[in-house]
């Protein structure tokens, strides 16, 4: 059973989302502040953290920075669950470090689907890594491919949140795009095809 950690300063929402996640077969840990979240993380590692941004006194971005800088926590996937409409500068600075962005309010159905999509994506990456390792792709290539795939997925996610007009401003920079294509070719050489279309997410 996968464990999800919910971090939000609104107890009602924490209660309600916990209930929904449990009903859908996830184990849930909750924290009502950034500090509480970081304390818990010192003892256990969840499979996914759903992190609110607008919190006092430590906001979500600060918590994220802490998580990403801790040795035992830096690889834990973090998905932002926020009422805050994303800003361009936030997108560009945080998107490499997060694994999803969910706008509140969100229906339970959507929340469960987004969480499910995320785990399926993790599985896909795991399979990819295993297969690539089996077929003799070098470690650096694999690591870079995974990172770029995650980044690509985030860009796609933000574009879908901002809509066609504002979304145009968000994109992978040309160098990353080129590198991404090179890696895809390398992987293709190992018989691994990355099917982007199949990975596209709806928010």
């Amino acid at each position, binding site marked *: 059973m996968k464990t999800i950690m919910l971090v939000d300063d*609104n107890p*009602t*929402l924490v209660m*309600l*989302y916990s*209930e*929904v996640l449990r009903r859908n077969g996830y184990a849930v840990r909750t924290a009502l502040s950034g500090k509480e979240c970081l304390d818990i993380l010192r003892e256990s590692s969840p499979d996914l953290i759903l992190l609110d941004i*607008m919190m006092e006194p430590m906001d979500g971005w600060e918590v994220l920075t802490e998580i990403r800088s801790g040795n035992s926590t830096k690889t834990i996937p973090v998905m932002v669950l*926020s*009422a*805050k*409409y994303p*800003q*361009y500068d936030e997108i560009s600075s945080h998107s490499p470090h997060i694994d999803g962005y969910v*706008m*509140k*309010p*969100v*229906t*339970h*159905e959507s929340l469960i689907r987004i969480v499910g999509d995320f785990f399926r994506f993790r599985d896909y990456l795991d399979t990819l890594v295993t297969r690539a390792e089996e077929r003799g792709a070098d470690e650096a290539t694999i690591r870079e491919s995974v990172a770029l795939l995650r980044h690509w997925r985030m860009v796609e996610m933000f574009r879908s949140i*901002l*809509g066609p*007009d*504002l979304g145009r*401003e968000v994109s992978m920079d040309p160098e990353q795009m080129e590198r991404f294509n090179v890696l895809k070719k390398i992987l293709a050489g190992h018989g691994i095809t990355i099917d982007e279309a199949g990975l596209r997410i709806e928010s």
Partner: protein
Amino acid sequence: MKILVVDDKSENRYMLESMLRSSGYDVVPAINGVEALEKLHADTFDLIISDILMPRMDGFMFIRECKTDPVLNKIPFIFYTASYTSEKDREFGMSLGAEQYILKPIEPDEFLEIIKKTVLSAPSQAQAKVAREVRDEEAFFETYNSRLVHKLEEKIGELQASKYSLEESESELRFLFDTMTEGVLFLDSDGIIIRANKAAEDILGLPFEQMQGRTSTDERWHAVYEDGTPFPGERHPAVQALDSGRETTGVMGVYNPSEDDYRWIDIHSVPQFHPGETAPFGVYSRFRDVTLQKKIRKERELHSKRIEELLELHRIIDSPEQTIMVRAIDASLVITSSAYGFIGLVSDDESKLVVHAWSEGVMKNCTVPSMPVHFNISGPFVWGECIRQRKAVIINNFDDYPAKHGFPGGHVAIDHFMAVPVFDMGRIVAMCAVANKEEPYTSDDAGTLTTLGNTVWEIMHRKQSAEALRKREAQLLEAQRLARLGNIDYDVTGNYLSLSDEGLRILGIQAEEFQGTLDDYYSRIHPDDLDQVKTMYTTCIESGGREIFEHRILRPGGEERYVQVRFRTVKEPGGTVTYCSGTIQDITDRKLTEKQLEVSILRITQNLEQMAILNDQIRNPLSVITAITDLEDGQYKQKILSAVREINDLITRLDQGWLESDKVRKFLKTHYGFYEESG
């Protein structure tokens, strides 16, 4: 020093006298030995120079007289001769006591040198010689006679030779007479033709037998003047020459029956006299066929007239179009020798011809409607034939012209005419037409008229272009003034920077205040921007690129203005930049507008940001409502959820507005940004 010069020929004496006098000698002339002896007795001389062949007493006899005289034999004696040139003559002369024996001709310097030497060293030798020769008088005369006989034989020989050469030259003359290209007639004292050469037969178109016995006044010559009037027989140069006894010349046309045409001849008649007679015994008339020359001269005159006409047209380029047209029509008449003419402009689709002016002749001789007259080219309009056929049309026999439709009443009577189209880029733009030249129109005429048409069109066209250019320039200046756009030009090699009037106005200075250097220009730039601007200019000039940059300038009164400079460099083939040109524009107003816009947008952005924070606070309760409603399937679940979604959509639009305004603000900052964010 006095010299006696003895020669029977005056020109020889003159030559010697002038040569000797110019060298400082006194000269006394004598024409033969007898006169020389008289002079010698009357005066004292330092030298005698004598010819040999002279009448009365020749040189040999003369020297003998001198050298046998005890006084005269002391005077040095020089023979100077052109006749006695043999070695024997020389030996004889020297044996008679001459100091020198000189053959003519001799270089003056050399002669003078000999004279000098002779005078200095003569006396003793002379006396010795004289003693020897004079002793034997018999011997002298023997030798003397042999020299004379020899000379006589030579003279006879010369005469003989000249007789032969006379015969030779006579036959030569006869040959020349027959073969020369000039016609030659010999007429006797009654003016009757006695002889004629081959060329005369050709030019006059008659064999000698037929003209033999005729006079110059014979009516069968049909002689005419250049203007076509009959040439009276008594005015004929041959007749005149016989009457007056003087050479006479004249030009006339004579009918050549074998060619059935007139030939133009230039006659030169020379009367011939027997020695001692005053009345000529006959006259030689030689004449050249000048028909071709006359034709060429006429062509040349016409040609230069044509050129003059064309040049004249160029001179009146500044006149109104109507004047040019009228002048061009006059020119068309002159250069084609026509009576009538007009020039018309063809409409763009080549369907209509508009005639703005006719030649004066047309105006006098027919009733034409008031100008301009429009013609349909497709209609029954003979002039339009050159446009329909798109080439020059020459009709020399109008009566037989099949396309003739008959002229409307009042039209001038046309015998023959010519019309040419004027092309511009393959389109017919005008046509020129002329009519009723005296002779038939030729393709040469068509060529000339086409040249005229082209010239007129070119002039009108150039005139229009020039006017259009002037207008455009004025518009450009006005546009520049309105746009506050000035020109800036920099001659790198000469370090000369020039600004247009508007450029100066932007800098707030008068032309005389500006020194025209880059440094002066720099001194007007805002100190805070100067380094950046200098770098821009320097880099641009060094690399040969183009730049657009904005900076501030300070006007003399201290007013600060914003300018935008677009700067372009011109490279030499080698790559060196020698010249730069560009525009300078006052963008202060735009800058201020931008600044206001920037401030407004900043304000809006800040407002929206405030709202966005509010949005987050609204979304939290909305999230709770959604979460609660969504947990259980209640009666109003879907209604509540869609209401929440609607509210969320509305506030999301505000979020997006903020994002949008932020985008605009950043865009302005990147593209126009001189300003940092201000409160």
